[in-house]
């Protein structure tokens, strides 16, 4: 049974998830993957900027800031 997937930007503060897919084949997608956002990698949401965008995430042991137009490209599966 596969768990329902959501977009990374829908993740709430402190929540963790597993990356399922990066959408697209353009520069944004490549950049995200180069920065270590790869299938099956856990990622968690650390906090949002005061004006609601961008958002800080923890992945592969470091912190990265993603704008909404980037995080919507990342499909994740919430950890049960």
């Amino acid at each position, binding site marked *: 049974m596969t768990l329902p997937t959501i977009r990374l930007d829908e993740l709430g503060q402190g929540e963790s998830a597993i990356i399922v897919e*990066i959408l697209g*084949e*353009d*520069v*944004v*997608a*490549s*950049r*995200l*993957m*180069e*920065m*270590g956002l*790869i*299938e099956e990698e856990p990622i968690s949401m*650390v*906090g*949002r*900027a*005061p*004006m*609601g*965008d*961008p958002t*800080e995430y*923890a992945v*592969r*042991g*470091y*912190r*990265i*800031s*993603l*704008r909404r*137009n*980037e995080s919507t490209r990342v499909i994740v599966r919430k950890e049960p």
Partner: protein
Amino acid sequence: MLQAHSAPKPVRIVALIGNPNTGKSSLFNALCGMNARVGNYPGVTVEQKVGRLSGSSEPVDVIDLPGTYSLAARSADEAVAVNVLSGDLPQQARPEVAIVILDAANIERNLYLFSQIFELGLPVIVVLNMWDRVSSEGLTVNAELLSQRLGVPIVCTSANKRQGIDQLKKVIEQTLLAPAPIAQPEQQARALFPVPFHLEAKRLTEWLESKGRKPTTYQVDRLLIDTDGHFQKTICQSGLPDIAEQIDEARVRLQSAGCKVPMFETKSRYAWVRKLIDGAVVRKESRIASPSDRIDRWLTHRWVGMLFFILIMFLVFQSITLFAKLPMDGIQWLQSQASSGVEAVLGPGALRSLIVDGIFAGVGGVVVFIPQIAILFLFIAILEDCGYMARAAFVMDKLMTTVGLSGKSFLPLMSSFACAVPGIMATRTIENRKDRMVTLLIAPLMSCSARLPVYVLMVSAFVPQTKYAGGWISLQGIVLMLMQSLGALVAIPVAWILKKFFFPGEPATFLMELHSYKWPSLIVLYQRVWERLVAFVVRAGTLIFCTSILVWAAAYFPGDHRSLDASVATLEQLHSEKAKWTSPTPTKQNDDERLKVEDLLVENQKAIDEVQEEVNRQRSNLIETSFLGMAGHRIEPLVKPLGWDWKIGVAVIASFPAREVIIATLGTIYSLGSEQDEESQGLQEQMRQAEWPDGKPVFSLATALSIMVFFALCAQCSATLMTIRRETNSWRWPIFSFTYMTTLAYIGAWLTYQCFRFWS
């Protein structure tokens, strides 16, 4: 003597490469001292930094390559890095060794770039920098095991504390002595690429070889993986347009074989990295937030974070105005002391004028910026090094995206409200080249502190002292505020246009690493501040100095200054007599003598006033007949639609090197001597009385507003233009800035004058 005939030792070359924010520039400084040669790679605006390895037995040049996350060769920076490392750059010998610097606290992500460098066929040295942070981040790193698995030497350093540097130097020398083995294909991450890809790579290599090309394995990989990559473009342009077709076909075949481009590359590389670090890098996995995360919870909090950000900005800019004022006053005092020193020794004449009005004013104009630059850069270095700078960009990003920029543009633009020179230099913190260029080009529009005196003069002389709301709000204050914000308001559409038409292209990505907080390192702070100061004084300073001399010459020649010099000499004689009589004499004076002295003083004052008037008249005559004055008359038809007469024209031309000069120039032209400041009642009075030949007053509210709008939008600052020249390494952008801002200023001033001329 015996060795006089032996050939000089050839310079060995090594390259330094790594992700941004890995302490690469600290390491570079630690290896080479601070005598880097900075230039540009031929044909691209990528900074080329080369230093000589210090303490080495043979000459070794270290090339500092631009910081990059990947060698995919999509951007100019990445392409330069790949080309230098593969030896494909004309006029640049191939480095013999690649020194790859990795953030020891973030090895996994940093090894991605390493996996690409590992395929370039160069001996490699790995530097695990920021080694001091490994244990505090809850990590254990077995460098020896990693070194064994990779078959390359690994050195652990903390460049900001100068730890491990000697060891690294030793390893570099050893590697140059006996070249280390180059990575075997089976060792590389490339070995994990899917089989269909290897087949396509072979096919493409054969096709290229049949066309007489000799591509490297890495180049072929990039051709297949990167859509519209750098290599594809260069090969297309070099007379092989068919390459695009070949690549497209190969990609279609890869797609149908289930090999997803470009995803398989990152996937394979990270799989390779995981295997490599398995058991060698252990992270204490904890669900509890790190101390850095806990700080972040507050510093990026909705209210607290915003408040903290405002507080920090307030602190930074208050400190600049507060701490820079004293040294700046000191510099100005020194300049005036030096000037009067020269005046005491040298009689009036061209030489004295050149020294005092040309050289001293020119040097002063450069030196006066130093305190501001030093203080701003000290703060930037502290904020950057402790990790808050990235958070500031994080907090402001949403606001800045409304004009198409990113959070990283905020601080440079904010700094430009004090002075555009440090502001433009601060754009170096913006990695995205297009964002940086747009920020750099709109920075001079921010209302800098040199504009304020001009506004104060015009507002207090020509804006009515109307008060509203029971005296709480004054019209003058409103006009002043509007003038202060005009530049920033105009910058919004300008940024939009620049972004849309001059720097279009790839969607803005803002993937930014947020490092853990740490205490800033003193060595790093010192280096950053020193580097920027030297860059400013040496590069921009010489040019600012030259412009000052040129304008001085234009205002001085070709007039005959002999009678003015004579009058000035008389004036100085009278002043020294006056000083003699007014100084208290030790001998007892009787009433008669005192009365006599008083009479003499009255007489002397009368003479001083007369000669002063004569001097002022002659000065204003001389400036009218000077090259500058002639230019002023020549451009009168051009500035008349703005409501200006030739005198304002002259003052505006003279103020192109530095806008605050206008007040002194207006003073000279309106025959008041050049010692005027913005609150001088005399100058305000003279300006109010100025008339056109037909008897109408020159200055009206409309004229004053038109001058202010012109000053708000114009690039009248040689220091700014020279800084743009330095930062972009090209004359194109200062010329562009000058042209667009002067055009904007002219149109703005014209519109203002035409709107208000019938109003008052």
